[in-house]
């Protein structure tokens, strides 16, 4: 019954227009002190078993093939407790 989180972010060298648009909007809304914003995706996967080695290997595979576009994105996996 474990829950696994996959965070997917654009690679650092890839333009993130959404993040930039937010960063430009913040000062107009009176928020200062934020120098950069990057926007990515977060996936919550509910597993029907424990988050053991085998399950995490599967999740890694899913992230590589489906959840992230590895041409432009990096991902990170963690088990939520």
């Amino acid at each position, binding site marked *: 019954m474990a829950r696994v989180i996959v965070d997917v972010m*654009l*690679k650092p*060298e*890839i*333009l*993130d*227009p959404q993040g*930039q*648009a937010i960063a*430009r909007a913040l000062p107009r809304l009176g928020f200062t002190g934020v120098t950069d914003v990057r926007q990515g995706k977060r996936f919550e996967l509910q597993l029907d078993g424990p988050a053991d080695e085998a399950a995490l290997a599967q999740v890694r595979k899913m992230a590589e093939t489906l959840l992230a*576009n590895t*041409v*432009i994105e990096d991902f990170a996996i963690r088990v939520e407790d």
Partner: protein
Amino acid sequence: MTLDTVERAAQTPDEPQPYAELGMKDDEYQRVREILGRRPTSAELAIYSVMWSEHCSYKSSKVHLRQFATKAPKCDALLVGMGENAGVVDIGDGWAVTFKIESHNHPSYVEPHQGAATGVGGIVRDILSMGARPIAVMDSLRFGGADQPDTKRVLPGVVEGISSYGNCLGLPNIGGEVVFDPCYIGNPLVNALCVGLLRKDQIKLATAPGPGNKVVLFGARTGADGIGGASVLASATFDEESQAKRPAVQVGDPFMEKLLIECCLELFQAGVVVGIQDLGAAGISCATTEMAAKGAGGMRIDLNLVPLRDPTLRPEEILMSESQERMMAIVAPDDVPAFLAICEKWDVPATVIGEVTDTGRLVMTWDGEVIVDIPPGTAANEGPVYERPLREPAGQAALNADGPERLPRPADLRETLLTLLGSPNLASKEWVTSQYDRYVRGNTVLAQPADAGVLRIAEALPGAEPTTRGIALAVDGNGRYAKLDPYAGAQLALSEAYRNVAVTGARPLAVTNCLNFGSPEDPEVMWQFAEAVRGLADACQTLGVPVTGGNVSFYNQTGSTAIHPTPVVGVLGVIEDVSKRIRHGFTAPGLRVALLGE
């Protein structure tokens, strides 16, 4: 890392340089050394390598494309012909139209969504830089077999890319093609067309006249996008080596492009633009060399002033970056404040990075040192020109001999008809076209499922005087016909687009084309190319419609297997009274049906 200055280059003539990795041949490199009288600096090498790439220099196609000019029919309507960002055609009542089609095939294979999106972005900036308001887009697409696994990756991404970018710009998509054929499986074709409207006397050119005028870079900041892309992505085959040195994928920002469009139109209106050029493949290298060569002959640029997204970029990388949504303008010194104010209104970053000179040299500095000092025309116009060997493909005669008469007669017509109707190439394309906004801007008279897109122009530019005119556009191509006979295949593509325009009630006026072929270094491909160009040029002459511009895309192949030769042809027509356009389909019961032609 030591800065490779001009001074240093002169002192270290024997330093080895990675010209081969940048796609340059030995003799090309030697020519650069002759031109400069020394070895190039690494920044200069970056400039020459991208400017002399197939993609930017048309070195293999130039000798053939000349026919479009030499055989061009006399046409008073042509205001700007080939060689500019896009051709401009006079459509009457003081109005002019500019249109062009361009490929983004290789990037769309690597990253379908971004590749296709930036393909739209690029062609829209071409049209914008002529001084026109972009008013519509079209797209001609080729994918592998509908049931081949990679098509599942490529097709949805490409359609989404075109849709998200074009929709966000507010440009109606008024037509195109979707064709499936196994020959495109490792090499899809994404050809995007844009059409723009301007007043006849408002044409802008990519030129930098008037020493003392300022060079302004505006739009997005420069990042690592597509560095090396112009030479690696667009002119190398997809072998593992080029995959390994794959540059950062260009990512589009359609919102920035929308701002750029509105900003540029306001700049044009304010009369503060002397010359303008979009930054596409070869980025700053291309814009500076071309504009300087066409203008006063010289330019001085301080590369440190280029606003960067990635502060670690080296000058060579800045010169080669293909970051999207950037433009370069030449502005009279007195107009600079007004120019910058308009950019600020639209939230478009703009920076003066240099000025026009009459020295005949393009000089660039970095940290106060001269790292580029070249005659700009040598990079922009005097690249190598190849007369590549041609050879009719080995199986060409046999292929043609294998005619339909050898096929068995279908036994069950019903079955045959159902198979045809259910085949991906004939099935409805609504899955694609329903993802495109065809209504935005309120001037779409006909779009899918019509044979040609038709636009009203009266209201496309607010404030201009009224006209009843409209324009029609169609884009067509058939790689299978062209494979059988490239000469006739190109003519058939033209005829189809020509007919599609004509049946809306419009008079065909001008042609654009995108020539998608395999490697020019393969004599059999080169033969196909030469035949197709000859066919298209002859047909344009016969039909009396000039080619106003276009694009050549070579190296469309997987390994050594080329795609079918695929010339895609766009035809523009004008209709005097757009309310008289003819819809396709049977409009009322009881009407007679007539068949015209053979």
